[in-house]
């Protein structure tokens, strides 16, 4: 029984947490929120120097070639720090999807730049409507040309390329990579509930792209990408949820009302206990997802859905009750509470809602029942 991270991964966590505590305090997130920059470029450079941008990229392409477990550790720590860098979009999503695509020419073109941080990628599947992540996109792909729009695209203003989902011939799914500096691509800022992670609306007018996968192959690639991303974003959410809980607990230990620290009131302390419970459940499900991702186990569909739903629940609860425990001050612009409150909404919706994933979860349970019966 070894349902825990290796000592090496835990060492990476310690290093990452120290680095981010020193270099990525929440004032960095605030600066990006209040400013015009798409992200904290200096911090991003430091992160690239540490090799985090190329953590999973093969050494042949300039990366460290480490396992997905190390990536989970970093996802959690970056989530904990709310670092205003395109780590989720570029490292957790675009890099992983590009590597999974098996499209060697494109990998050779972009992976080295991703590894050294000189390029930023993103994944653009949303189209501003209420479709779910497994739906058919409206963006059309004819030959190697894209026409339509994607929004919101996280880090879409900072990104050098986007991997998009599109509708190809006969309505078949296409997954394609677009150089965002190409002709026919125009971008504008697009506001979302999360003010730290800047998003874009990207409009494609007969824009050139490289098709990475089509039809059944694209469906398989997307399904696998959704599951893998669900696990990685669960770690990110878990990190944020733990940070929100710690913020609430710290305040409850300091704030005095009616002659007592408010953490002594059961209404407050039991709420904190409930945060802890939800975060622990989320952690256990996230670990299960990491194991399934690492081993390619058939349980991945179930584990990924469980990790995502538990992480969404944990972060939303911690974020809402963190404001509540802070009282009036927690509702101000100057308080850090809003970062978690907003991030909670972002993580709840940026890869399909908890409703979507709960349904996926039950599908996986049904499937497992069928497998057991067969």
């Amino acid at each position, binding site marked *: 029984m070894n349902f825990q991270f290796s000592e090496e991964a835990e060492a990476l966590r310690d290093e990452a947490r120290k680095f981010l505590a020193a270099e990525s305090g929440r004032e960095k997130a605030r600066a990006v929120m209040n400013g015009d920059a798409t992200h904290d470029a200096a911090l991003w450079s430091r992160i690239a120097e540490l090799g985090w941008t190329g953590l999973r990229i093969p050494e042949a392409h300039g990366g460290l070639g480490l396992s997905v477990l190390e990536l989970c550790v970093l996802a959690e720590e970056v989530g904990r720090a709310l670092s205003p860098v395109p780590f989720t979009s570029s490292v957790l999503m675009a890099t992983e999807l590009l590597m999974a695509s098996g499209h060697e020419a494109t990998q050779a073109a972009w992976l080295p730049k991703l590894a050294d941080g000189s390029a930023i990628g993103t994944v653009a599947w*949303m*189209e*501003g*409507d*209420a*479709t*779910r992540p497994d739906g058919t996109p409206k963006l059309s792909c004819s030959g190697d040309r894209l026409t339509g729009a994607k*929004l*919101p695209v996280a880090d879409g203003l900072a990104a050098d390329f986007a991997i998009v989902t599109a509708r190809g011939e006969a309505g078949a799914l296409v997954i394609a990579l677009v150089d965002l500096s190409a002709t026919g691509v125009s971008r504008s800022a*697009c*506001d*979302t*509930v*999360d003010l730290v992670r800047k*998003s874009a*609306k990207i409009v494609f007018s007969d824009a050139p792209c490289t098709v990475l996968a089509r039809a059944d192959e694209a469906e398989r690639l997307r399904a696998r990408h959704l599951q893998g991303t669900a696990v990685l974003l669960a770690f990110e959410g878990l990190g944020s949820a733990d940070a929100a809980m710690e913020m609430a607990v710290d305040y409850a230990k300091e704030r*005095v*009302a*009616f*002659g*007592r*620290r408010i953490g*002594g*009131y059961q*209404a*407050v302390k039991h709420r904190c206990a409930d945060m802890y419970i939800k975060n622990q459940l989320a952690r256990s499900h996230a670990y299960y997802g990491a194991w399934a991702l690492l081993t390619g186990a058939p349980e991945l569909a179930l584990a990924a859905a469980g990790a995502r739903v538990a992480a969404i629940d944990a972060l*939303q609860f911690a974020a*809402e009750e963190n*404001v*509540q425990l802070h*009282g*009036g*001050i*927690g*509702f*101000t*612009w*100057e*308080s850090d*509470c*809003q970062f978690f*409150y907003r991030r909670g*909404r*972002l993580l*709840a*919706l*940026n890869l*399909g*809602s*908890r*409703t*979507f994933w709960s349904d996926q979860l039950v599908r996986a349970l049904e499937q497992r029942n069928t497998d057991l019966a067969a």
Partner: protein
Amino acid sequence: MDFEDTAEEAAYRTAVREWLAANAAEYKTPYEGDVDLVVRGKAWQAKKYAAGYVGITWPKALGGQGGTPMQQIIFNQEESKYWVPAGIYAIGLGMCIPTVFTHGRPEIIQRYVPVAMKGEEIWCQLFSEPAAGSDLAGIRTKAERDGDGWVINGQKVWTSGAHRADYGIIVTRTDPTQPKHKGLTMFIINMRAPGVEVRPIKQMAGASEFNEVFFTDVRIADDHRLGDVGDGWRVSLTTLMNERLAVGGKPTNSPDAHSLIELARAIDAEEGNMLEQSHVRQKIADVYIQDRGISLTRMRTMSAISSGRTPGPESSISKVVVAKLMQDMGSFAGDMAESAGLLVGEDASSLPHLDALRQGYFWSAGLRIAGGTDEILRNIIAERVLGLPGDIRPDKSVPFNELHKVVS
């Protein structure tokens, strides 16, 4: 059982409706011009005052109408069908002026009450402080005797409308050697006096409805004291009793079960639309039970008022239910809308009610705190309605300036 007015109520309602039809026609739609809210507000208040619709329940001796609470409710119901600029007087006439005419000296009442009723002066309420929120008696703003008057130093926070207020009522600490509820004193303060500085507080959702107010050597004459020296806690209860009534419900036109129905119907599901999904239907029923349950509860309260009885404690449940409900509705609506639930501003989705529901997700986080947190309200229900024991209070009999010694 019926939902009809009595004959007297019906007659009053008719009169109000006719007066509004004749005088409020310009407010039939939201205002789109660029005249200042204060200017528009003063004009409307003057009209109301002239027609006898200000201080409906107040004694005639004070310039009020000596009317019934039901008349006030009827006027509010009818007035709320228009987009009138009445909000800037809510705190002053709802909370401050009743405190002034209950505890002020005759010449002070004479000076301030009629002017406030006409709307010529706007009031704010200066109670909360950074270290005194739920525990209001923890305030630190000092008032020190100086000759015939007083000198105020300190800071207030969460003061609605301080930036446009002419006067405020302020609770101060006049004797820190007394236990916290003793040693407080209430005053009327001139918000334009030297040493008063108002700074807006930007809220999480971006708006600035509240202010911080700083006081540096602000002078107040002793005749502007409300109640005795050291009696400020009791005086403040007059104000707070009225606040609980004011902060009760949700804003008019905020989302309800029908908003979720229309949103769900507009979103495609795998088959048909989201309104056909059973989890959505169950949630809508939950919302209806709570939201409609509160409005029906309000009708029970009004029935008691209408029949001249004292309302029961049932109205105490309103805010604690509504605030959390709005938060839950907001996140549920976002989940239904999937990625469209992320979008704000120019690119926001046009799905029906989605924007209002998302905004509700933000302001409900504040509503769960303002005017008594969820936790304080549950304490009140448990202690005052159900008679359960109060929390243990280590601070009750300790001198204020030695309180730090007892904190556990």
